[in-house]
C-alpha cells in the first residue's frame, strides 16, 4: 500500500514538475537571478518524464488529488 501511495505521489510530482520547471511565464534578462544546476536537473527530469517505463509503473495505483488513471 505504501508503495502505491509513493507511486501516486511520484505521478503528481512529475505532472507538477513538467509544468513548473518549463512552462508558464519564463522571464529572461539580468533582473532574474539564475540559480545554479536548475537547467541540468531539468534535463534529467525531461528524460524521466518522457519515459514510458515511469508511466508503466502506474499500473493499478490509486491517484490522489487531481490525478486519475484508468486501465
Amino acid at each position: 500500500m505504501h508503495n502505491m501511495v509513493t507511486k501516486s505521489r511520484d505521478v503528481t510530482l512529475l505532472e507538477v514538475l513538467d509544468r513548473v520547471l518549463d512552462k508558464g511565464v519564463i522571464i529572461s534578462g539580468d533582473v532574474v537571478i539564475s540559480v545554479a544546476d536548475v537547467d541540468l536537473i531539468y534535463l534529467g527530469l525531461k528524460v524521466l518524464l518522457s519515459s514510458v517505463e515511469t508511466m508503466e509503473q502506474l499500473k493499478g495505483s490509486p491517484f490522489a488529488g487531481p490525478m486519475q488513471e484508468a486501465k
Partner: protein
Amino acid sequence: MKLYLYGIIDSSDQVKDSIYGLEGASVYNIPFCDIGAVVSEINQPIQGVTEGAVLEHEDIIEKLMENFTVLPVRFQTIIDGRDNLLSMMQSYYKDFRDNLERLHNKLEFGIKVIWPADKIKEHIINTYKKNDKKVSVPSNSSNKRFMRKKFEKYKINEEFQKKANKYISVMDLFFSKFAVEKKLKKLKTEDLLLDAVYLVEKGKQDNFRDAFEHIKSAHKGFKFLFSGPWPAYNFVILPKNNDLLKDSNQEDLFDKVIQHRDLVGADKI
C-alpha cells in the same frame, strides 16, 4: 532585497488571504497598472529543485487561482529587488495583459494516453504478412532481401502512424468540443500515444471530464492519465525574444518605469 516571483495576476489589489510562501515569508502583490506580480521576499538562493519547494510553489499559484486569473511563473524566478521587478513588469506589461485576458476563467487539463503499442504492432505485422503471402515473389539475392526488409519496416511504421492518427483524431474530437485551445503531442514514445493539454472554460470543465470518461470507457486496453485543473502553464504565450532588459537602453527604460510607477501609485502597497 530579493523577490521570489510566483505569478502575475489580473489585479492590483492585495492578496486578501494570508498566504505564506517559501521560507515562510508572506506572499503579497506588487501592483503595476491594473495587474500585479505576486511575490515573497527571499534571503538565500534555493538549493536546487526539491520536492517540497516545487509543491509549495504550485500550491501558492493554485491558492491565487481561487480569486484571480494567474499567469504562473516558472519555478525559481527570483528578481533582484523591487525596482528591477517593476522594470520587468513594464517590459512585459502588454504581453501579460493579453495573456490574462485570453486566459480569464479558463483552466488547463492534461491527458496522457498509453496504448498497447506492442500488440498493435504485432497485429500490423501479422496482417501485413498475411496479405503479403498472396503476392509473394521469391527473392534470392541478399540485396533484394535487404530492400524487402527495409520496405516492410517502412510499411509497418506507416501503418502504425496511421493507426495513431486515427485514435488521436477520435479522442481529440471529443475533447476539443469543450476546449478553447489545445496542444497535442503524438507518440512521444511508441507507447505514449497522446500527451495533450487542453484549455477549458471553467463552466465547461464538467463536460470536459464527461468527454474524458466517455473516451476512457470506449478504449479498453488503453491507459489514461487525467490531471487538472491546473493554472494555464502551457498556454502562456510570450514572444520568444522579449528580452528588453538586456537592451542597452536599460537606463531609459528604468526612468520610464519610475515615471509610470509614480503615475499609477505602484509603490503604495
